């Protein structure tokens, strides 16, 4: 199929270029010029950008199909303009065997919606004790190795894991949280948790763990991506680590850029997240760090949770929120608040995550795969359960009116979503 998209405001975050014009697609790739198009799309008033890349979207398969399925979540992905996503290994069973990874990729491919990049388990069953067969998992298609939110309490295991991964050049994605200091905690250890009587997780649970990780990177030179920063202290540590030249990158979940512990209100279980929402100061430091590029990427941290999981007292509620379909509006909202250009804003969910993943995507150049999104930056949408394609209907933004509506999503030149 040959496409001709005209009158679009074309934004290429990788080069920083913005301008109105046209773009051609042929044979699944961005083409120099059209010839005779099968379809001409008039994109007046719309932005044309590379499809979004989400570094953390839980698809819940295998094992948690009652919460979501590959089908429902990949529908949600393309409806949100997401053309590539990485899924963490905390499925049931965990993604610790090549067969599971292979099956997941085949199932995803058969649905032919967004591209799925599995992140393999770093340790067997995510138990933090024995290393997985990273070589075989890598051959099966794992792009990195991670513990997801499972703790890796034994620093010696972490050291060995990084040594082993560094030997073969595998990327390791880690959340920085000291398991002992976080034990039993469900909210940011501060005035709000004190008032609500919720057990706290101190900010230094993150900075201490991050200090350990960075020291081990210094020793092993392993390529590490730090997931879901939540504290101002961690942003400072990452800034210094990058100045030093350590091979590290990091991301932040978009909830943490917009919300803080005050949003817990009267025990809103929608705000039960991992890591916890922290103070206003932390939130502001994360938003700034993302603008300055200390934080490389924003992600949705999409985690579908069913009603039963949220209709519980705060501490007992299951952590997580749906996010794929909020990735664009929440990124736009952040970019606007930081007074960034559209190209700089979208870089955090296109070219930058492509760089972290090491995939050929996230840029608008001739010959690149035609993973594209057309969206209306001024149209607004009210976030309601019915409006969400994801099986997870829980988000702190329920009822909110947000700008940024996806009109068309292309993966490899094929229309996978149109509204």
């Amino acid at each position, binding site marked *: 199929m040959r496409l001709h998209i005209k009158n679009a405001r074309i934004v290429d975050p990788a080069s920083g270029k913005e301008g109105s014009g046209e773009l051609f697609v042929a044979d699944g790739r961005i083409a120099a010029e059209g010839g005779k198009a099968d379809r001409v799309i008039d994109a007046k008033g719309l932005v044309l950008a590379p499809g979004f890349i989400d570094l953390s979207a839980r698809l819940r398969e295998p094992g948690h199909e009652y919460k979501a399925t590959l089908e429902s979540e990949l529908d949600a992905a393309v409806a949100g303009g997401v053309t590539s996503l990485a899924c963490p290994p905390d499925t049931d069973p965990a993604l610790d065997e090549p067969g599971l990874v292979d099956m997941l990729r085949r199932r995803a491919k058969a649905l032919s919606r967004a591209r799925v990049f599995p992140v393999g388990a770093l340790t067997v069953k995510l138990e933090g004790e024995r290393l997985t067969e990273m070589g075989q998992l890598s051959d099966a298609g794992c792009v990195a190795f991670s513990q997801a939110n499972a703790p890796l309490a034994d620093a010696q295991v972490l050291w060995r894991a990084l040594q082993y991964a560094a030997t073969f050049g595998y990327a390791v994605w880690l959340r920085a949280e000291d398991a002992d200091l976080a034990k039993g905690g469900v909210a940011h*250890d*501060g*005035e709000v*948790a*004190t*008032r*609500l*009587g*919720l*057990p*706290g997780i*101190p900010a230094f649970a993150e900075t201490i763990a991050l200090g350990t990780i960075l020291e081990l990177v210094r020793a092993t030179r392993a390529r590490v991506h730090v997931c879901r920063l939540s504290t101002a202290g961690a942003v400072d540590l990452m800034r210094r680590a990058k100045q030093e030249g350590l091979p590290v990158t990091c991301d932040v979940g978009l909830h943490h850029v917009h919300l803080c512990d005050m949003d817990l*209100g*009267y*025990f809103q*279980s929608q705000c039960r997240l991992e890591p916890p929402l922290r103070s206003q100061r932390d939130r502001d430091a994360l938003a700034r760090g993302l603008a300055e590029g200390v934080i490389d990427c924003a992600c949705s941290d999409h985690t579908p949770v069913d009603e*039963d999981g949220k*209709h*519980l*007292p*705060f*501490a*007992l509620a299951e952590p997580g929120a749906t996010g794929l379909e909020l990735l664009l509006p929440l990124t736009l909202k952040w970019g606007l608040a930081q007074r960034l250009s559209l190209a700089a804003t979208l870089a955090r969910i296109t070219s930058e995550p492509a760089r972290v993943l090491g995939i050929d995507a996230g840029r608008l150049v001739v010959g690149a795969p035609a993973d594209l999104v057309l969206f209306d930056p001024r149209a607004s949408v009210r976030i309601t359960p019915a409006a969400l394609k994801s099986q997870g209907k829980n988000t702190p933004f329920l009822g909110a009116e947000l700008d940024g509506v996806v009109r068309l999503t292309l993966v490899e030149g094929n229309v996978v979503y149109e509204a």
Partner: protein
Amino acid sequence: MQRNPQLNEKGELQHLLSIEGLPRAILLQILDTAESFVGVTEREVKKVPILRGKSVFNLFFEPSTRTRTTFEIAAKRLSADVINLNINASSQTKGESLLDTVANLSAMQADIFVVRHESSGAPFLIARHVKPHEHVINAGDGRHAHPTQGLLDLYTIRHYKKDFAALTVAIVGDILHSRVARSLIHGLTTLGVPEVRVIGPQTLLPTGVEALGVRVFHDMREGLKDCDVVVMLRLQNERMRGALLPSAQEYFKHYGLNADKLGLARRDAIVMHPGPMNRGVEIDSTVADGPHSVILPQVTFGIAVRMAVMSIVAGN
């Protein structure tokens, strides 16, 4: 921020979930109403027909004898039908959900749910899901709140001290785990007590407790100086396990109330305790049973305060 979930559209008390956020006028209304009920509890026929035909469900997801009993007595003195349900929280997680339990009881025509739960915020969740004519009273949720205890503490203080605006109140001990302390602090600051102190080791004080409007003392002798009211908190034995304290003996040495330390407070100071007491751990028997102690009157007032709360919410 959402509307205070305890109040109806007219700003009246619909549920009692926490003292925090309640206007001074409502607190005083409860205390005044309680005062009128103290007379009832001293009569030979200890009953008034205010809640006749109404059903009060005591929904206890965490074991409690004392609080449940006082709610039961209070409801019976208001002529309500009382149904006690003790639900083991751990078995509950495997079976019926919290909201299903409430929905089932609601179908049995409940009017008031008295809820105790080990998880902070549980009564808020229930209050969001009950029918408009049903009322929820928090009988203690996690570390968060125990508003009727806070109210009976306020009642006791007012009974003995009259003017809140001239008082120094010290709360001593395990503030970190204490819903009683949180509720009392909110009540005291709302009613205009100029100085509320908390006294304890760092391990038993929650992060940022100053933001609740209290002064922090680690030295009990310093903290008790010139206090009008001393509230001792119960110390659970399990605190010795989580590396919070070395031993009960050492705790008593630093933070136990004995006659010597009490001597630093005002001559007419009163000593309170939410019970049950650990004699020799947080309080010495000579003080617990001494002339400054108002620990038993607290229990008596507690029934009147719970009668007041139930009659007010049921009337709104």
